[in-house]
């Protein structure tokens, strides 16, 4: 596990169609700062584009960037390819074996009607000279880039037997300083590679804690637009939103239930922050904690039967687990310092990412809940807001860059790291969205 492989990728703006200038400010740039030694060599032959108009999205380039960005693959530079086979029968396996390629991807994009396309591709094992998988995916011009990420997911899963999370979105908050006193806060959504960033809310007052609904159609977040914290739920398609928790005290830290019908949240109406469960239809709420300490940052376990939350009932902040239906909180973080907060659970519920504070600062740690062990994954001093990718392979978080807060991602084993920086302003509080269905 060394820093031998330091790769820089600048995702070219030319990949983005239209409005490139308008989007440039919002574009996240991904740099892989640490990859796996011995990432799998793979050749992705540029896909043929059979359509009336020139290609708007270079599908195979998007796929290569995705796979490289995961740190688990080392795609061969296009210029080095010995040939560009379009069909299985065109492949000269000996050439690829000599170059040390384990796998080969060939494919094409065909126009099927005015705005309809089909992406066809095959994943080939060079050693056994067999096709591992072949797919034909119909899509529209508008969704070509998203479908390219879907292709990356299928290749990732075919070869590694781990679900890909490229065709997903992230939500995050950006902060742009306008002058000494004022800032613009934006809630944005982008594809997992930082492209296609769109602002869904802009405010002069702070925004925080974006949280996805399980189906990815809504975001809950905290806004200070009323000069106090209030929780909103916003429909991503329509932009319509509803203020669900407001009034005296803190109204914050929303988390959707696995069925999407209710929200866990922190409220301090009675002078002390506790965890509440609100039914989003009836707005009826139930108090889940009553301790005079700070209880906040509640998250559901994937089975929907428990919540984990941060509490300083034992002195410093630590993570506790509590059955949704009531019971005694059980502490989950032991022997890992006196500051552990902001838990994010892996999709299988077996691992938990936390902010771990110690002598050297605040870092992202991952706790193995079955083995009761933990590992510190990052090495900066102000890391926060960890959020698991929906395939459980990566954790996205906020860290301090040269020009302020930026996003970073680290693999759960700590071996792969990425940075996602805005070209201007700060970006923080990432929340990785669900796998799209």
């Amino acid at each position, binding site marked *: 596990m060394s820093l031998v492989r330091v790769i820089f990728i600048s995702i070219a703006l030319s990949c983005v169609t239209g409005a490139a200038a308008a989007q440039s400010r919002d574009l996240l740039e991904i740099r892989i700062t640490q990859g796996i030694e011995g990432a799998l060599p793979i050749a992705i032959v540029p896909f043929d584009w059979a359509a009336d108009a020139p290609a708007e999205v270079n599908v195979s380039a998007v796929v290569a960037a995705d796979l490289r960005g995961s740190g688990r693959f080392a795609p061969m530079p296009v210029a080095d390819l010995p040939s560009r086979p379009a069909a299985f029968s065109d492949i000269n396996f000996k050439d690829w074996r000599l170059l040390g390629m384990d796998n080969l991807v060939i494919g094409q994009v065909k126009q099927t009607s005015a705005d309809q396309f089909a992406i066809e591709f095959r994943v080939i094992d060079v050693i056994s000279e067999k096709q591992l998988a072949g797919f034909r995916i119909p899509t529209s011009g508008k969704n070509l880039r998203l479908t390219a990420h879907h292709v990356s997911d299928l290749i990732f899963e075919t070869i590694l037997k781990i679900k890909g999370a490229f065709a997903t979105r992230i939500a995050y908050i950006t902060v742009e300083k306008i002058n000494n006193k004022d800032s613009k806060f934006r809630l944005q959504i982008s594809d997992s590679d930082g492209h296609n960033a769109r602002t869904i809310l802009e405010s002069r007052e*702070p925004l*925080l*804690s974006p949280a996805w609904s399980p189906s990815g159609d809504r975001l809950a977040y905290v806004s*200070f637009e009323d*000069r*106090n*914290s209030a929780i909103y739920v916003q429909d991503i398609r329509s932009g319509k939103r509803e203020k669900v928790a407001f009034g*005296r*005290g*803190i109204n*914050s*830290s929303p988390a959707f239930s696995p069925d999407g019908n209710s929200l866990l949240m*922190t409220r*301090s109406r009675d*002078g002390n*922050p506790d965890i509440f469960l609100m039914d989003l239809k009836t707005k009826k709420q139930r108090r889940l904690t009553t301790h005079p300490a*700070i209880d*906040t*940052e509640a998250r559901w376990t994937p089975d929907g039967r428990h919540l984990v939350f*941060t509490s*300083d009932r034992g002195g*410093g*902040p630590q993570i506790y687990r509590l059955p949704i239906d009531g019971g005694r909180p059980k502490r989950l973080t032991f022997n890992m310092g006196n*500051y552990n*907060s*902001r838990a994010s659970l892996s999709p299988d519920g077996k691992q938990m990412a936390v*902010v771990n*504070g110690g002598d050297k*600062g*605040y870092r992202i740690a991952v706790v193995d809940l079955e083995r009761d062990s933990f590992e510190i994954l990052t090495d900066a*001093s*102000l890391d*926060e*807001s960890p959020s698991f990718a929906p395939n459980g392979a990566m954790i996205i978080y906020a860290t*301090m860059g040269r020009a302020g807060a930026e996003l970073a991602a680290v693999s759960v084993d700590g071996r792969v790291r990425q940075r996602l920086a805005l070209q201007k302003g700060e970006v923080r*509080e990432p929340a990785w969205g669900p796998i799209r269905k």
Partner: protein
Amino acid sequence: MTLTNSKWILLAVLALAVAGCSGNKTKEADGNRAAVEDRGIGHGEADDPGVTTTGIGDDDPYSSAALGDPNDPDGPLSVRIIYFDLDSSNVRADFRSTIEAHAAYLAANPDASISLEGHADERGSREYNLALGERRALAVRKQLVLLGASAGQAQAVSYGEERPVMVGSDEESYALNRRVEIIY
């Protein structure tokens, strides 16, 4: 016990002094000084052998300006920011006089109200810091109420680490950002 009682009496005297001077600044200042001097605060020495006075110690913060104009840039009410130690919501001793001055003003002006904005430094998680900011604002509010302000006069709001006054990842910035702002 004695200390608390004497403070209450003092507050009442001070409140009356202010209430009686209908906003005239000169008179107000005079009234305060007279009230305070009568109590011999901070000295505890009897200059008349026939009278026994009891000093209430150096920690008593009342001074002649304690009920001054909140807009007087040199008065104690001009101090509107209370700073806190790391991960703490204890009101430090060096801010007690400030809080006592504001409490006295609020007690004397029942129509006045303030907002207490609690803030945290940037370290650690944002939501936990939001709760810490509130705890600080509530700690100040509790002291104000103990000192005579009514609960309805002070509203606590927390901004957590979202509104730093000093941007920077160093001790100096952190110390300036861990604060409660008193806003009239």
